[in-house]
C-alpha cells in the first residue's frame, strides 16, 4: 500500500474518530456533575448511566470551586435538559449557577443546609426511610423490643413519628430522648441505659462530634447495648448496625427520575425521596461487644460486614 493511500486512510479514520468522540458530548441532554473522586459520588454514576439509556456527559469537579465555576459558565452557554449532581458541591453549583436547569441530586446529606431545594430540584435521600430502617433492624434482631432513640434538634418530627409508627406495628417501643448538645447525649445514655435494650443514634451534627461519638460507642459497649446508627462510617467507627442507601441503587433511582423529566416532562417540586435500595451494614466486633446474637443464616443477607 502506497504511502499516499495510507495517509488518506489515516486521515479518514482520524476525522471519523473525532466526530465520534465529539458527538456524545455535544448532543447530551443530560449532564452529570460529580463533586469529587470519592466512592460515594462515583459509584452511582455507573448505574445511573446504565439505567439512563442514553449518552450523558460526566464532569468531575475534583472538589475545586474554580472548576465548578468554569463548568457552570460553559454549561450556561448550552444548557442540558437535566443535570444529575452527586455531592453537595456539584448540586450547589448546579442549583445556584444553572437554576433554570432541572436538577436531580444524590449523595447530599443535608441539602437544605446548602440551599439545594425548591422547584426544579429532586433528590434521593442519603438516609434510609425510617420505616425501612426500623423494620430491617427488627428483621435481624427481633428480640430487641425497647429501643432508646437519641434525637438531635435538627431531626424532623415526621421522621421520628414514622419510626414510632413502624415500631408500633412491629411491637417495638421507642423511648425517644431529645438531646441538644454533646453533654445531653452523655446524660441520655446514662438515664436511658437501664430502661432500654438498644440505642438508636440519629445523625445530627449539632450533637454528635467525634469525642461524643467515641463516648457513645464506649458506653454502649460497656453496658452491652447494641448501637444502631444510620451511616456505614458510623458502623465502621464502632456502631453495630445500620441500614444505608445502596450507592448503586441511588444512581438507578436518580436515572428513573431523570427519565421522567425527559420523557414525561415531570416537574420537579423539591421532593426528597427515600432510597429504594438499601444495604444492611453490620459490625461483627460490635455485635460481640453488645452480646447480641444473630442467626447465621441472616448473616448471608448482610450487605456489608465489618469485621
Amino acid at each position, binding site marked *: 500500500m502506497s504511502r*499516499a493511500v495510507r*495517509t*488518506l486512510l489515516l*486521515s*479518514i479514520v*482520524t476525522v471519523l*474518530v*473525532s*466526530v465520534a468522540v*465529539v458527538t456524545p*458530548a455535544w448532543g447530551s441532554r443530560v449532564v452529570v456533575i460529580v463533586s469529587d473522586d470519592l466512592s460515594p459520588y462515583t459509584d452511582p454514576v455507573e448505574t445511573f448511566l446504565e439505567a439512563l439509556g442514553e449518552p450523558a456527559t460526566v*464532569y*468531575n*469537579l*475534583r*472538589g*475545586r*470551586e*474554580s*472548576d*465548578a*465555576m*468554569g*463548568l457552570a*459558565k*460553559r454549561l450556561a452557554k448550552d444548557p442540558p435538559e437535566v443535570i444529575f449532581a452527586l455531592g*453537595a*458541591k456539584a448540586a*450547589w453549583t448546579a*442549583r*445556584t449557577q444553572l*437554576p*433554570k436547569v432541572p436538577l436531580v441530586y444524590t449523595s447530599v446529606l443535608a441539602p437544605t443546609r*446548602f*440551599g439545594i431545594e*425548591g*422547584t*426544579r430540584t429532586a433528590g434521593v435521600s442519603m438516609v434510609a426511610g425510617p*420505616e*425501612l430502617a426500623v423494620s*430491617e433492624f427488627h*428483621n435481624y434482631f427481633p428480640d430487641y423490643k425497647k429501643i432508646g432513640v437519641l434525637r438531635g*434538634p*435538627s*431531626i*424532623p*418530627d*415526621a421522621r421520628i*413519628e414514622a419510626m414510632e409508627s413502624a415500631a408500633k406495628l*412491629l411491637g417495638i417501643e421507642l423511648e425517644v430522648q*431529645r438531646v*441538644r*448538645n454533646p453533654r445531653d447525649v452523655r446524660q441520655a445514655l446514662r438515664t436511658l441505659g437501664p430502661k432500654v435494650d438498644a440505642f438508636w443514634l440519629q445523625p445530627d451534627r449539632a450533637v454528635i462530634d467525634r469525642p461524643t461519638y467515641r463516648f457513645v460507642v464506649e458506653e454502649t459497649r460497656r453496658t452491652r447495648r447494641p448501637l444502631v446508627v444510620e451511616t456505614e462510617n458510623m458502623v465502621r467507627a464502632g456502631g453495630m448496625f445500620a441500614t444505608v442507601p445502596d450507592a448503586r441503587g441511588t444512581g438507578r433511582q436518580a436515572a428513573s427520575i431523570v427519565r421522567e423529566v425527559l420523557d414525561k416532562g415531570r416537574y420537579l*417540586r*423539591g*421532593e*426528597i425521596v427515600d432510597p*429504594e435500595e438499601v444495604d444492611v451494614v453490620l459490625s461483627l466486633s460490635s455485635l460481640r461487644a453488645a452480646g447480641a446474637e444473630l442467626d447465621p443464616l*441472616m448473616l448471608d*443477607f448482610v450487605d456489608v460486614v465489618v469485621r
Partner: protein
Amino acid sequence: MYPRPYANYTLLEQLATGGMSQVDLARRSVDDAGYVRFLVVKRIRANHVEDESFVRMFKDEARITSELRHTHIAQVYDFGRVGEEYYLALEYVPGTDLRVILSTLRQRRERMPVRMALRIMHDVLDALQYAHTRTDAHGRSMNIVHRDVNPRNIMVSISGEVKLIDFGVARASDRLERTQTDHFKGKVAYMAPEQISGGDALDHRVDLFAIGLTLYEMLVGAGPFAGMDQTQILFRIMQGRIPSFAPPRDWGESGRALAQVVNKALRADPDDRYPDADTMRRAVYQVAEAFGGLPTTAELREWLHALDPDLEPRVRQKMESWSGPIPLGRSGDPGSDEVPFALDASGTMDARAIPPGDSSGSGTVTRTMVLTGVGMATALLIGGGAILAVVLLVVGLIYLPPLLSAEPDAQATAEVNQAPPEPDPTERSPARKTDESEQGAESDGSSTAAAQESSKPAKPSSSTPPAPSVTAPKTAPEQRTPPPARSTSSASPRVAPETPSQPAVSIIEEPSPTPSPSIVEIPSEPEPEPELTVRIGASDSASTPKAPEPAPPPEPEPEPAEPGKLTILSGNRGVPVFIDGKKTPYKTGDQFDWPSGDLTITADGHEPAKVTLHPRMSRMVRLSPK
C-alpha cells in the same frame, strides 16, 4: 414598588408594616424560575437606627441567633444593611400564626383541642430549651432568651410543623419600643413581672411565663387579661395578680394536672416557676398522655386544614405564582450563607480545570484531531482528491468553529477568577460584609409574626391597591409581569414551598373589650384581637398582575399504596416462591418489592406462612421445611 432587588433577595410583596419596620415576602434574587427559596425580609426604617446602642445590641443578637438551628425555630439567614436601612432575612414559614388560629376559633366559638394546644406548646418549649442551653465554644452559656413569646410569634405550618419566630430580636426592639407606647403595648400582656419592671438580669424564665400565658389563652380562648386596658395589665402583672387557670370540671383529674402545669408557669416569682423549658416540656408531655397523647405532625396538619380548608391551597397557589420568572431591571446575586466549597477542608482552589473525561478534556483531544483532519483534507484537495477532501473539509468546518470558540479550561478558570460579575461562592455577599464591618439592624418583633402568616383568608384574585411602600426604594421601579396564579392540587411532595396571600396591612388599635379573666368558658361574643393587631386583609395579587408563565404540568395522580420489601428465607436458596397462590418471578433468598398487605407465602417443600407486609417496610419471612 414590587418586585425589586434588595441585597441578595428579590422583594416580592409587602406582608406587613409597623411603626419601626416593614416586612416583605422575598425570594432569593435569581431572575428565573429555577431556584426558588422564599424568605421574609424585615426592614428596619432608617429613622430608627440612630441609636447606636440599639444597633449594636441588634447586631449582637442577630449574630447569635443566626446560629440557632432547630426544627422548631425559624432560622435567621442573614442580616445586614442596604443604604440607610437595616434588614433581617428570616426563614419563611408557610402557614399561619397562633394568633390567627385563636382568632378563628373565637369567631367560630370553638375551643382549641387540648391535645393540639399541648403539642404546639411542647414544640415551642423544645425550641426554647435548645436556645436557652446554647453554649459557646468554651462551653459558657450564651444566655439566649426569646423575650417575646406570644401567639404572634408561634407559627404553625401547613404541614403541621410548629416554629418559633423572631428569636432574639426582641431585646433590641424592646429598647426602642419602650419609647413608643403603642408598640410596647402590644407585648405587655405576655410579659413576666420581672420583665416589666425592667431589670437587666432577665433569664430564660421570662419565656416560661409567656408560655404559661399563651397556653392559658389557647385553653381558655382568651388571655387572662382580656378586657383590661394597658395600665390595668401592667398593675396586675407587677403586683403578681395573675389569674389562675381553672379547668372545666368534666376534665377531671387530667384537667387538674393540666392546671398545675399552666399555673406553675404563671407564678410571679421566677423561682416558683419551672426551672427550665425542658422540665416544663416533660410536664406537658405527661399531661398530654392523660388527654390521649400528643398528636402527630400529621394530626396537627389535618386539624389545621379542617379549621381553615382554604389555607393550604391559598399558600401553595401564592408560592406557585411567585415561583416563576420575575423580570427585573437587574438580576440579583444568588449569594449564599453557606457554601459547600467554603465548608470543605480540602477546598484548595488552584487553576486546574475540568479533568479529562469531561467535555473539556475530550475537547482538547478532539480539537487536535479535527485540525489534523482539516489539514490533511486541504492537502488532498491540493493533490486532487476532490470529493473526499471536500467532505472532510466540510466536516472539519462544521466542528471546528465551536471548538475554537470553546475556551480552554485553564483560560476559563482564569477568567472566572478575574471576572467580577460572577458570584464567588466562597465570599459572603456584600451585604454581609457590610454588616460585619459597621452596622446592625433593628427590629420590632411585632410585625414579623404577622408577616409570616397568610393570616385571614385571602381571596386569591381579588383586587387590591398596591401595597404601600413605606420606605422609598432607591432603585428605579422595575417592570413586573409575574406569572399567573396556578391552581394547585393539595398533595404535594415534601418540600413544596409556601406562600402567604398578598396582604393589605393596617394596624388596628383595638378598644379594650370584654372581660373574663380566669374563666374557662369561651366568651359568647367573638373575642377581640390582642391590643396590637396586624390584620392581613383579603387583598391579593391584583396590584401586581401576573404575566403568563409556562405552567408546570399538573400534579401527578396519587400513587397506590406503597409496596414493602419482602425476603423469603428457607434452608435452600433459589426455591420458587408462590404468593397468594401465584407463582412469582422471585425465589427464596431474593429481596423484592411487593404490594403491601396480608400475604400467604408458599414454596415447594415448605409449610405455608401468612404474613403482613407494611408499606415502606422490610419483612423477612422464614419458611419451615415440611
